[in-house]
């Protein structure tokens, strides 16, 4: 029994934190999010050099060959200071390629993900906003040796920055008749449009596929094998990755208000002395500890016990959604008027909490899955 991180993972955490402290303190985060596509290409290149873009890419393809626990550490730290970058989206694509791509496809795209020359982002959700298999309506019709794609994808992370999209499409009428295909961002018939996001540290957009033609070798895996399972697993990966970032972000927000409670004096006393302040702060701690524990077990399952993973990913995401929502609100409220100002960071965490709860499944969606998988 060992429910702790390894020494290497603790080192990775320290390294990421040091990098972000030096290069992306909150003041810098505010500057980065004003830049085109909302990230800093020079830091992105540096992250490639440090091996973080290819963290889950196999070593023989230029990556670090690490697993979900390591990725959790990296995402947690990026979440802590709301570091704006396409890391989450890019890593999800890398995981999907690693698990589902043929040898040729892995060689074609994974090295580029690791060195930062490709930016692949997943495009899984559509306008009707369903995470069920039936929610994929974008069609792929076979025409000779190519596929022609028609439909629309929504809430695509880092859409305007991407060099490629990893798109779920429907290939037949049976529920699981799906495929994951790779499209280049410049493909004919593809329209990319940014949608403003409530969280300024996150970017997303919409894809219009109007007869986009791709060769067969851009369909992930053996083309005759439906990808329903692969898409479902990618959605679990997404929920886990968002939750991992949410841990860091919730801890970041919590640290803000804990520090404030130790400095702010009212009625002749530090406000942290009053139970009206100290109890909500303790409740936040309980919440964070708890969805942390749930996520750590879930991410262990993703690598070591995949059959259990969907249940625990859903538990973690559901709890994180509700807890971070409360934390976002309470952190602003406990700061008083200061928390409502543009210059204070509380609102950035509040906005991140809104992004977290709506991305890769709300609490109802995940609790429904927990109920079904828990045998009721």
């Amino acid at each position, binding site marked *: *029994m060992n429910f702790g991180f390894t020494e290497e993972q603790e080192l990775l955490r320290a390294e990421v934190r040091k990098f972000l402290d030096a290069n992306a303190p909150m003041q810098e985060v505010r500057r980065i999010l004003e830049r085109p596509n909302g990230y800093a290409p020079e830091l992105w290149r540096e992250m490639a050099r440090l091996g973080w873009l290819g963290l889950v890419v196999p070593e023989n393809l230029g990556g670090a060959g690490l697993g979900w626990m390591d990725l959790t550490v990296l995402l947690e730290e990026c979440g802590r200071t709301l570091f704006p970058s396409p890391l989450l989206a890019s890593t999800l694509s890398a995981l999907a390629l690693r698990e589902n791509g043929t040898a040729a496809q892995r060689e074609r795209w994974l090295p580029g993900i690791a060195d930062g020359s490709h930016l692949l982002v997943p495009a899984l959700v559509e306008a009707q906003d369903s995470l069920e298999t039936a929610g994929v309506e974008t069609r792929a019709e076979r025409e000779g040796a190519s596929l022609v794609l028609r439909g629309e994808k929504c809430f695509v992370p880092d859409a305007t920055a991407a060099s490629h999209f990893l798109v779920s499409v429907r290939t037949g009428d049976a529920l699981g008749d799906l495929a994951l295909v790779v499209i280049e961002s410049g493909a004919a018939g593809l329209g990319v449009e940014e949608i403003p996001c409530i969280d300024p540290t996150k970017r997303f957009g919409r894809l219009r596929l109007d007869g986009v033609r791709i060769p067969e070798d851009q369909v992930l895996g053996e083309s005759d094998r439906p990808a329903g399972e692969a898409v479902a697993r990618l959605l679990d990966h997404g929920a886990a990755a968002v939750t991992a970032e949410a841990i860091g972000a919730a801890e970041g927000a919590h640290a803000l208000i804990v520090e404030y409670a130790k400095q702010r004096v009212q009625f002749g006393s530090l406000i942290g002395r009053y139970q009206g302040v100290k109890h909500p702060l303790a409740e936040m701690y309980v919440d964070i500890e708890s969805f942390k*524990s749930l996520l750590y077990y879930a991410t262990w399952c993703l690598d070591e016990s995949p059959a259990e993973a969907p249940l625990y990913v859903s538990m973690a995401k*559901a709890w994180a959604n509700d807890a971070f929502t409360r934390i976002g609100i309470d952190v602003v409220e406990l700061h008083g008027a200061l928390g409502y100002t543009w210059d204070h960071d509380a609102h950035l965490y509040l906005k991140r909490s809104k992004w977290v709860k709506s991305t890769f499944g709300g609490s109802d969606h995940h609790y429904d899955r927990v109920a079904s998988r828990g045998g009721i």
Partner: protein
Amino acid sequence: MDFRLAPEEEVFRDEVRRFLDENLPPESERDAMFALRWHRLIREKRWVGFGWPGEVGGGGGSIMEQAILKEEMAIRRAPPLGGCIMGLAWVGPAIIQYGSEEQKRRFIPDILDGAYQWCTGYSEPNVGSDLAALQCRGERRGDHYVVNGQKIWTSLAQWARWMILLVRTEPETERKHDGITCLLVEMDSPGIQVKGIPNMMKQPLFAEVFFDDVRVPVENRLGEEGQGWQITIGALANERSGISEITGLLRELDLLKDLARESTWNGRRALEDARVRRRIAEFETRIAAMRFNGLRYLTRQLRGEPVGSETSVNKLHTAHLEKYMAEFALELEGNHAAIAPGSPAAIARGRWQKEALGWCTAVIGGGTPNIQKNIIAERILGLPHD
């Protein structure tokens, strides 16, 4: 991270399972005397006081083995490990850590045998959550302490043969914590009077205890004079994952699912209603969170790192679950929830009504939720004391 057991731990788990297969009949086949026979059996295996050192008669089990034993026992619904509840939970560990050799010889075997009950004299009429402010006096006179004062909310006081008692021996100390001494007191000592207090179920399970010039020999002092607070806070490195408690909560959840399966809700099966399903999923998630919190704390213990205030996290979860699972069951029962517990007309003899009125022991005993939040805020987050 790795959630698999080490090979030698698997060997131990298999040994426990085999023993349970061979010796533990299902609950329906256990008669009134079973708990006694069971206690004798597991006492022989040295599984009572399993985490205590071998030289005092314990089992010398590792922290991981303690967790395995507790979990397997709880899954199979074995009777509790040993009959002397407080003796095993904190009196024994305190005596092992702070007691004289004579005290260990005198008390530990009886605690392991469940020979008699201990009770705990901590709370006083004016001293509850702020325990260190206690006023019950202990005055040294020659080879005795003379105790005067009152304790309250003392569970099992009417039946206990011994009490672990905190008294103030030094009224004028700078820190109120420093003047407290721990005494082991025989309950039939002259000058002790016990008066039961009926709880809301009308059961006199706790009591007031009055001390009028009660003489306690100095040899029955535990640790040094003024060390009482430290003894109360410190305890041996017992397994602290709360694993058996979690198994108990999972059992409650199963019963709640059964109730939902059998109930109707707005004219259809309750289990088909999204709100019912989500509420149950939330309980399930909270219990899973407790389990993994417990395993993380267990890992820290295995690495030799201290685990203290963190256990307040799971105490708060327990408090929530104890209150709200029963409350939700009452909602499912509709009008039947208003039938008095114990009535044959009630669903399942009113077990959920009993739960809905009986959570107080778990939630209030050992520190109310507000106290747990203070502990987290002050000791973990470093916020100023009240």
